[in-house]
């Protein structure tokens, strides 16, 4: 009796463990549809209307042929999940990533180079606005193709311009002009002989400016808002974050000048005043977003900002123009370009079919449909003539022109970009609160990133030949 019981338990637990293992590692469902089409799994970050726009393309593709069926799955924190799924040997066939993640994924062997398939399909750089092709390349290989692109531009609130006595249709042409306009656009509340008064910053007496004993009601611009691109302010001063080889240049004179400009705002308006004002900001995606709420007159934002304006502040009169650089004659039309990309993870079961879909998305009509659906511009070199007319964003050309600018820059293509961002944020923090001078803060950041970068490069040197051989196959 007891022996039998023992056997039953052993069998049960063995079965349990077995199921756990098989369930975790092996495909549990068939990768064919009932009518025999190959299922291609596609993980993508988008939800909401962006997800719907992509789903429409997926549906079109599924209808257009009868061999492949694409299944789109919206996934949050997609970069980490794809990394873990790939490490676990069960990745999706298509991964919807960001361009800035490519270097890290490629170097770690998490995605596969597309060169061969691209050559066969006859797709090359000439098909794209060059910057987006470059964004998909790393170490001489192409790792992904764009799905939707983005560039950053100055957005301004025309009503606030008018109230400040500025021409609402003329954005600043240089950074110095922007600073001057920002002063006019800034309104503070101040105690004057026991009476509270709201005045424009430009109407304060020199003593009042010096004392900074006021609270900010509205601000022309805050370089710390939204704070996503702090590490790249140097681009508007002609700076770069690395020398495209082995040297991190966080502390170049241009980057230091950018940080000097950044801290000039808390110095001018008072750090505490800025912090208190900053505490009133709500979430980015909410009506309390300071730009959407009319509390900040100018902001640097990507092509997606239009969606948030029409959702949370539909009545706003606004404009978009290139964010002015320090020396507009030398470095005109500076922008940060990035794009969403589609890559094929290593270990994907249907790379050929996956590429079919990626290729479909990158053909003109579907791409334009997707980009209109997501209110972006097309990353392709050729664009149909009525694209701009059909596009809901009245300033869409500003963004697509910026993408074609020679100063359309992007994040350094290094695999430790996450660390770089973290160190630069700390440096900006330190300089902002005055704990360190901009120079010292950047020196520390540069040393730390360089230290990490050296370690990565040491490893790369060891595996370089093996990797390049593997990628060339």
């Amino acid at each position: 009796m007891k022996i039998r019981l023992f056997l039953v338990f052993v069998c049960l637990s063995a079965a349990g463990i077995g199921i756990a293992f098989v369930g975790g590692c092996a495909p549990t469902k068939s990768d064919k549809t009932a009518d025999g089409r190959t299922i291609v799994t596609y993980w993508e970050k988008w939800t909401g209307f962006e997800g719907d726009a992509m789903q429409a393309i997926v549906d079109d593709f599924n209808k257009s042929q009868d061999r492949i069926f694409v299944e789109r799955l919206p996934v949050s924190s997609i970069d980490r999940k794809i990394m873990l799924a790939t490490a676990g040997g069960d990745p999706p066939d298509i991964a919807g990533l960001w361009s800035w993640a490519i270097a890290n994924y490629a170097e770690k062997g998490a995605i596969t180079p597309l060169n061969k398939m691209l050559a066969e399909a006859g797709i090359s750089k000439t098909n794209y606005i060059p910057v987006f092709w470059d964004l998909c390349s790393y170490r001489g290989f192409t790792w992904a193709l764009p799905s939707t692109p983005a560039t950053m531009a100055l957005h301004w609130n025309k009503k606030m311009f008018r109230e400040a006595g500025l021409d609402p249709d003329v954005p600043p042409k240089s950074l110095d002009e922007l600073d001057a306009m920002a002063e006019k656009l800034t309104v503070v509340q101040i105690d004057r002989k026991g009476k509270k008064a709201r005045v424009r910053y430009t109407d304060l007496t020199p003593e009042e400016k010096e004392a900074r004993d006021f609270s900010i009601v509205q601000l022309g611009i805050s370089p710390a808002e939204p704070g996503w691109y702090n590490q790249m302010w140097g681009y508007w001063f002609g700076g770069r974050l690395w020398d495209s080889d082995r040297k991190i240049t966080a502390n170049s004179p241009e980057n230091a000048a950018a940080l000097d400009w950044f801290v000039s705002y808390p110095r001018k308006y008072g750090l505490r005043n800025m912090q208190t004002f900053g505490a009133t900001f709500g979430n980015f995606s909410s009506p309390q977003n300071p730009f959407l709420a009319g509390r900040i007159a100018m902001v640097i934002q990507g092509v997606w900002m239009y969606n948030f304006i029409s959702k949370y502040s539909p009545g706003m009169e606004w404009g978009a123009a290139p964010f002015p650089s320090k020396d507009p004659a030398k470095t005109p039309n500076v922008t940060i370009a990035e794009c969403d990309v589609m890559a094929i993870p290593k270990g994907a079961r249907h790379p050929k079919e996956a590429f079919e879909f990626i290729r479909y998305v990158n053909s003109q009509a579907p791409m334009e449909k997707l980009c209109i659906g997501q209110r972006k511009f097309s990353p392709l070199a050729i664009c149909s003539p009525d694209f701009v007319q059909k596009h809901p964003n009245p300033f869409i050309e500003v963004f697509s022109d910026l993408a074609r600018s020679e100063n359309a820059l992007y994040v350094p293509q290094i695999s430790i970009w996450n660390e770089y961002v973290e160190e630069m944020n700390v440096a900006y923090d330190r300089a902002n609160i005055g704990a360190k001078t901009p120079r010292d803060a950047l020196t520390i950041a540069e040393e730390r990133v360089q230290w990490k970068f050296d370690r990565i490069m040491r490893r790369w040197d060891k595996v370089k030949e093996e990797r390049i051989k593997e990628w060339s196959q």
Partner: protein
Amino acid sequence: MTRGEFRTLMTGLAFTSPWILGFLIFTLYPVAASIYYSFCDYDVLSRPVWIGTLNYHDMLTDAVFWKSLKNTFYYALVSLPLGLILSLLVAVLLNNSVVGRPAFRTFFFLPSLVPAVALAMLWLWIFNGEFGILNYAMNWAWTKIGVFAAWVSAFFSDAPLHWPKPHFPNWLAEEQWVMPAIIMTSLWGIGGTVVIYLAALQDVPRELYESADIDGASTWTKLRHITVPMISPVIYFNLIMGIIGALQVFSGPFIMFGGSGPNRSALFYAIYIYQNAFEYNQMGYACAMAWVLFLIILALTWLATRATRKHVYYAGE
């Protein structure tokens, strides 16, 4: 071993086998693997490369590692004693026979049932420098004191009192206030500890208090010389659990700051492990850090056990 004993052993093992297998596969193996990885350059995706003690060596020169360690110790050193004392006081109060005692006990325990994420969002608003209720309350109190002070000073002088208008901290944006804010949030969760204390307090023999009363002992003396020694094993238990919990703190600050906070003031050790493992793909380094944390906790627990050995009273001994 007789046949019967062997059979009993086998049956016992069979009944525990699901757990044993689970432990071997899901706990022991990962733990052992993490020791191996801690000596490797491992990014999860490529093959781990043996690099000897380089990860441990790098820790010595990694300023951020030290900062995270310093932050964690700062937090532990303040929040742990504060939490232990406060929860003991609350437990003693709740142990008194007052009307509505069960209700009070529930109130104090309830906060520890709130999920960490919801709690973190709540604190974000409480500590908000502009709209936060904490600063609002302090401002209100300060103004009221000002009115009172002006009323008093009017008796002594004709000059109007200049009552300063202080700047209340912007808790989550100012580096020096971040840690005090996090410590305050930690005190919110003392409910669990209070319940454990309460259970222990019930076990203290009444007659000890009665004889102390006859000798005319004060409340403080009774607390100091009867309550605390009698529940010392529970205090010891809470201390050890507190050390472990405080050094592993993660979710609250992680959600509130989404990373490391202003100038890394909210970068805790466990958060830095997470960043290395999942954001920077430095799994080898993260494993090494995890083992160092394990050794630190082991050492502190051993120290705490040694230091309290003479003061912990077990009725059985």
